[in-house]
């Protein structure tokens, strides 16, 4: 990460505080084998869903974790939430590793799920859904002695459902999609968390409704000082709301940096391909990557993107003399511009780095 240069003249903004640090996290899913095959020693296929992911989430920022399906972004998010056990690396909250008992942690870090309908128990009233968090943690009074109903009402209000009392006795099926997602958000807010992990928060909602929910998230960041990490496949969404963007491919982050930089001056060929493919008026004559989304059970050697990489395909890699490394040598993120990192040999060269990769 970049170091702030302390100089005498202009006052530099203090180093942003890191709320959550993900360090070299690995998650592997084990395929199953039949009983007899298992006895013969055959192991199931291993899917390296998250294969060494490291990044920092800074207080008050909105970070987008983007990529196609299978890249590991949702698994990473769930690992941060503690819903997914990790095989390697660690996750630090406010500098300290996650404890064994995650219950207190859960008051600090909350999640918003993709499917608002499935996430709400159809047998619970909205009141009970929101109050659930409070009851799990044994909170029956607010910090100033407020009773439970007031806390629930406040959460509903903050999520834009007003007047909140109208919703207390309603059931999820009586609400629209957008309202349900607000209920999910209110349910997370009632615990007054510091961080919200949002897994595709709007992709299941109608297009015209999405903007509102995103507006809500941004407002909550403003008003409550929340830190938000959004998992999404939609780069347009990242452009709209994110401060920083991390692009994932096959279990690794391949590019990370401020949204303007990553989305407008992408360094990694995969990011460029993703951006090219976002539909817009201009026709379909842009270069489109061939092949299917990659398979986490068969991660290529060297740079995991090399089989589909236009730089390799067009021969540019050979020209630059890096083809062998692309095919054979795995590589890590390197800072190419302030705050902007990417893992691509071609990009390294463009930014004046020659010689062995460090970090």
């Amino acid at each position, binding site marked *: 990460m970049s170091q702030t240069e302390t100089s005498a003249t202009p006052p530099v903004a203090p180093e942003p505080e890191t709320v959550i640090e993900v360090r070299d996290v690995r998650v592997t899913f084990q395929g199953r084998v039949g009983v007899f095959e298992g006895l013969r020693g055959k192991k199931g296929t291993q899917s390296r869903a998250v294969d060494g992911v490291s990044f920092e989430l800074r207080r008050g920022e909105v970070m987008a974790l983007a990529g196609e399906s299978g890249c590991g972004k949702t698994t990473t998010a769930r690992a941060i939430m503690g819903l997914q056990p990790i095989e390697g690396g660690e996750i630090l909250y406010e500098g300290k590793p996650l404890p064994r008992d995650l219950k207190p942690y859960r008051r600090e870090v909350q999640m918003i799920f993709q499917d608002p309908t499935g996430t709400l128990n159809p047998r619970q009233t909205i009141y009970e859904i929101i109050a659930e968090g409070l009851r799990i943690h044994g909170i029956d009074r607010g910090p100033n002695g407020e009773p439970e109903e007031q806390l629930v009402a406040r959460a509903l209000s903050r999520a834009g459902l007003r007047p909140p009392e109208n919703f207390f006795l309603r059931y999820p099926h009586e609400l629209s999609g*957008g309202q349900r997602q607000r209920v999910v958000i209110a349910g997370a807010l009632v615990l007054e968390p510091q961080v919200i992990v949002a897994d595709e928060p709007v992709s299941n909602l109608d297009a*015209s409704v999405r*903007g*509102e929910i995103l507006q809500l998230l*941004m407002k909550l960041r403003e008003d409550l000082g929340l830190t938000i990490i959004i998992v999404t496949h939609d780069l*347009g969404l990242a*452009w709209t709301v994110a401060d920083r963007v991390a692009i994932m491919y096959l279990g690794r982050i391949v590019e990370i940096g401020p949204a303007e930089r990553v989305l407008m001056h992408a360094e990694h060929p995969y990011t460029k391909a993703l951006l090219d*493919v976002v539909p817009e008026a201009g026709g379909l004559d842009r270069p489109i990557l061939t092949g299917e989304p990659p398979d986490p059970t068969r991660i290529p050697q060297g740079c995991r993107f090399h089989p589909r990489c236009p730089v390799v395909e067009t021969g540019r890699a050979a020209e630059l003399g890096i083809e062998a490394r692309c095919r054979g040598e795995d590589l890590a993120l390197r800072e190419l511009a302030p705050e902007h990192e990417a893992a691509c040999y071609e990009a390294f060269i463009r930014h004046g780095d020659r010689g062995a990769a460090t970090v």
Partner: protein
Amino acid sequence: MSDILTLDDVRITYHTSGGGVPAVRGVDMAVAKGEVVGLAGESGCGKSTIAAAILRLLPPKTKVEGTILLEGENVLEMKPGRLRAVRWTGASIVFQGAMHALNPVKRVGDQIAEAITVHQQAGEKEARVRVGSLLEQVGLPTRRMKDYPHELSGGQKQRVMIAMALACSPSLVIADEPTTALDVMVQAQVLRLMKELQRDLGLSMIFITHDLSVLVETSDRLAIMYAGKIVEEGPAELVFHSPQHPYTEALAAAFPEIGDDRFRGKPMGLGGDPPDPAHVPSGCSFHPRCPKAFEDCPTVEPDLYPAGELRRAACLLVPAAKERTGAGA
């Protein structure tokens, strides 16, 4: 008649235990030969209902009024024999979630061949040859015809569905959310394929989706649906970039262009939700959510007024509206 498909005042009402639900409330539409018409809208707007209606694939008790002319013939008045003949040879459909429409216990080649032989377009041997060439057309190696659906990826299955839709050389292909469940990269591949096929085979197409940005790329003309009616229609680029109807504007804003500073940090959306077809608001159905609504909107239901060259929009703010109704700000 150079129009492959003409819809004239089509009204479709579903039958439910709670009464009739008007899913489509008067739609006029035409698809010219070789044209791609995009039909956009969100849930409950009626677009999938129209797609199913064209080949009379709606549930039995559904009431369909109006005329649907497919190559000059009224689909709604066809006798069952003629209907069966027309289905797939006149027009075919690529369904939403098409990947699940494949029979898991039959090889894909057999399933495509079935479409051909059922319509007596060819005998078994000939059908197999045709299957091979169809697969090539959609970019799959011929040997794939021996595969079972589970051996194919999502994008490949979608290609198979497209091959199936083309099996009997229809004049019109209706694609209902064909790429919604696919990754962006695969979606781009499939869209490019469809565009190429459309060009090469001179197909007419109706492309249905909620993703407006996809339609701008693929369609010649665009029709936006809301609450069972078309609220705007015209050349795709114009409709997207200079919408005449506030709903179109809002829908377009939901698909921001990366690099466009107007959207940076400002997600744009509408309040409320797309209306339930069983409870459509009075007057202009969009008025509760419309940022430009004024006092006439809840009472006057706008028609599709001319709004430019080959364009129409159903909004009282359109200049032509004021002449016709006297209403307007």
